[in-house]
């Protein structure tokens, strides 16, 4: 405890506090800007940290990472475009609340849940560093394949009124990930001899195309959304009673985020989608998810912020980054001459405890920055669509380009915008396609790796208890909607689940 207090005193020194505050501001901005993300924000400040001492440099990066996870929800809620991929699930209910004129309430719930998730993730980091690291390192190809299939089983709950079209959408998402060089053999697939396609179709251009450009094209064709009602901003903020009433949801989301975040490679995007789906599954009114439920915001936001602390567990204990952002953080540690691994706790314990305390301070600063910013974000949603949507397109294209300095990414965003628009016109939900692109690499690569290690024997997926449990959970998840539907129809007619993309309804 005294070591933690020493760490807290270190984190509260003026220079370190300034670094945390700067990180919080930059993180919220990077998370909120479509095309930017915590990873991009961290990468952008990496050169700046060269000139800083190790402690403020790492505290600034930790603060960016934490704040960016909340920042992604701002645009997800305000304009229906996830600022970064972990905020994808937040758009389902967040934007629906904005359309009802409850942007302030949604942002308040997101902020409170992010703060709670961030704190719980930090506690997890402090308490469970050792055991969880051992569990995470036990994941091999078979377990990752099981995790990927379990993640994909969520499609069963995202398909909306026409399950068939949801499945087609997921298949198309899986197909999009094929484009590029095969990870295991280096063979070009579906590149048609084009060098620009060798790197594949990225997730960010897909997200921006589907959620920003398709929306703008809908506005251009006159299928625009109505401007959400404004309402009083202060009055629209959630009451403390409502926030604390979400404690079960936040705990569940944080636990899911903590578990998935500690598994290297799984990441906050999968954690937030799984958390949203699990919340829907345990709900007494699952059909209302996607129509603007506070729990639909709280679960994914608690999960993606909980992931931040959890992703640090394998990073600090084993030097394995749990996410792309943690990989950039690993770069920051290396540049500062800090070698993560089992010896870190003994050799640089003061730095580790300063990082623990820095996480707590970063969460509180995120709360302050986020709370003060809510009036600004809610004003954004009151802009006329004829002004807002062109700005969304422009900033999305600039942000996409800035990811890798590659014009091909901006073209990919336009391609996905047209595909997304066509899919929406045809009644195909977009979320399953995004899930397919995210999970495709995990499923295919680990399936092939596992069979390669087992000389082609599929029993490898059943011999591993973790893989077996995940595959069984996936089977249950795939079957659950059909079973639920049958049970409900047995009791009488019940409303069909929504498509979970309610923001698209008014286009039609």
């Amino acid at each position, binding site marked *: 405890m005294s070591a933690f207090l020493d760490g807290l005193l270190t984190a509260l020194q003026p220079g370190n506090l300034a670094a945390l505050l700067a990180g919080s501001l930059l993180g919220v901005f990077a998370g909120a800007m479509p095309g930017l993300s915590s990873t991009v924000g961290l990468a952008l400040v990496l050169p700046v940290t060269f000139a800083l001492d190790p402690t403020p440099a790492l505290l600034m990066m930790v603060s960016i990472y934490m704040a960016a996870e909340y920042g992604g929800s701002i645009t997800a809620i305000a304009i229906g475009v996830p600022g970064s991929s972990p905020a994808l699930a937040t758009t389902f209910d967040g934007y629906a609340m904005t359309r009802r004129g409850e942007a302030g309430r949604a942002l308040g719930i997101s902020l409170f849940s992010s703060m709670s998730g961030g704190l719980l993730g930090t506690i997890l980091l402090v308490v469970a560093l050792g055991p969880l690291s051992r569990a995470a390192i036990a994941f091999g190809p078979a377990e990752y394949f099981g995790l990927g299939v379990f993640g994909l089983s969520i499609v069963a709950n995202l398909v909306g009124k026409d399950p068939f079209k949801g499945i087609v959408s997921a298949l198309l998402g899986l197909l999009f990930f094929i484009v590029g060089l095969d990870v295991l053999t280096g063979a070009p697939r579906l590149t048609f001899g084009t060098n620009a396609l060798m790197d594949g179709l990225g997730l960010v251009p897909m997200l921006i195309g589907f959620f920003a450009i398709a929306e703008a094209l809908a506005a251009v064709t006159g299928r625009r959304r109505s401007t959400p009602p404004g309402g009083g901003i202060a009055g629209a903020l959630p009451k403390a009673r409502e926030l604390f009433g979400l404690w079960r949801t936040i705990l569940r989301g944080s636990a899911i985020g903590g578990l998935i975040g500690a598994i290297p490679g799984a990441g906050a995007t999968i954690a937030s989608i799984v958390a949203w789906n699990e919340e829907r599954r345990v709900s007494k009114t699952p059909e209302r998810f996607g129509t603007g439920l506070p729990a639909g915001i709280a679960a994914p936001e608690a999960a993606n912020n909980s992931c931040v602390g959890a992703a640090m567990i394998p990073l600090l204990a084993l030097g394995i980054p749990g996410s792309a952002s943690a990989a950039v953080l690993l770069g920051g540690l290396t540049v500062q001459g800090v070698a993560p691994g089992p010896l870190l706790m003994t050799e640089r314990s003061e730095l580790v405890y300063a990082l623990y305390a820095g996480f707590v301070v970063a969460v509180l600063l995120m709360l302050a920055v986020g709370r003060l910013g809510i009036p600004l974000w809610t004003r954004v949603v009151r802009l006329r669509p004829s002004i807002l949507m062109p700005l969304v397109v422009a900033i999305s294209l600039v942000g996409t380009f800035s990811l890798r300095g590659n014009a091909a990414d901006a073209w990919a965003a*336009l391609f996905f915008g047209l595909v997304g628009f066509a899919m929406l016109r045809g009644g195909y939900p977009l979320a399953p396609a995004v899930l397919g692109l995210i999970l495709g690499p995990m499923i295919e690569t680990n399936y092939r790796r596992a069979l390669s290690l087992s000389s082609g024997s599929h029993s490898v997926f059943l011999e591993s208890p973790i893989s077996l449990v995940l595959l069984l959970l996936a089977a249950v998840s795939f079957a659950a909607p059909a079973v639920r539907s049958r049970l409900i129809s047995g009791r009488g007619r019940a409303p069909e689940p929504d498509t979970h993309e309610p923001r698209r309804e008014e286009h039609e």
Partner: protein
Amino acid sequence: MSSASAGGTTRLGLLAEAGLLAVVAAGVLLDSRSYPGSLAEGAPGPAFFPRLLAVLLMACAAWLAIRAARQPPESDPGRSRGNVAPGAGAGRGARLALGAAWIAVFLLAWPRLGTVLSVPLLVAGLMWLTGERSRLALIAVPLGFAAFIYLVFMVVLGVPLPSGF
């Protein structure tokens, strides 16, 4: 989304979707013929997953075609209710093409004109296409936004966006 009004619910729409899926699946199958074999014994090669997806997409295309064949022609929701304004679809299609073309022109011109010149043109064009007619907004918003992009991305963050010429 109200699938009832979505384009894909008409017989022609379903047939078009089925045809598109079949073409995509056939293209994947053709492309996968050139992939190398597996590097490890017993493990599937790079062609396995694309072919599996192509077969599944073919099955989906077939199911869509069956759905189209079962659908009576009079079930076109727009026509049956007589609520499709003549020329409305064509006008929307033209605006969609214009919007997409304007974004494509921006992407082509961006490296040559630079960010500061091309971004205001993109924004102003899209604003006009989206129905904005206020001259003040059409001038002030694109210029103000370009200044924001320049300051934040190019000056503060140091992102090397195209500077043109």
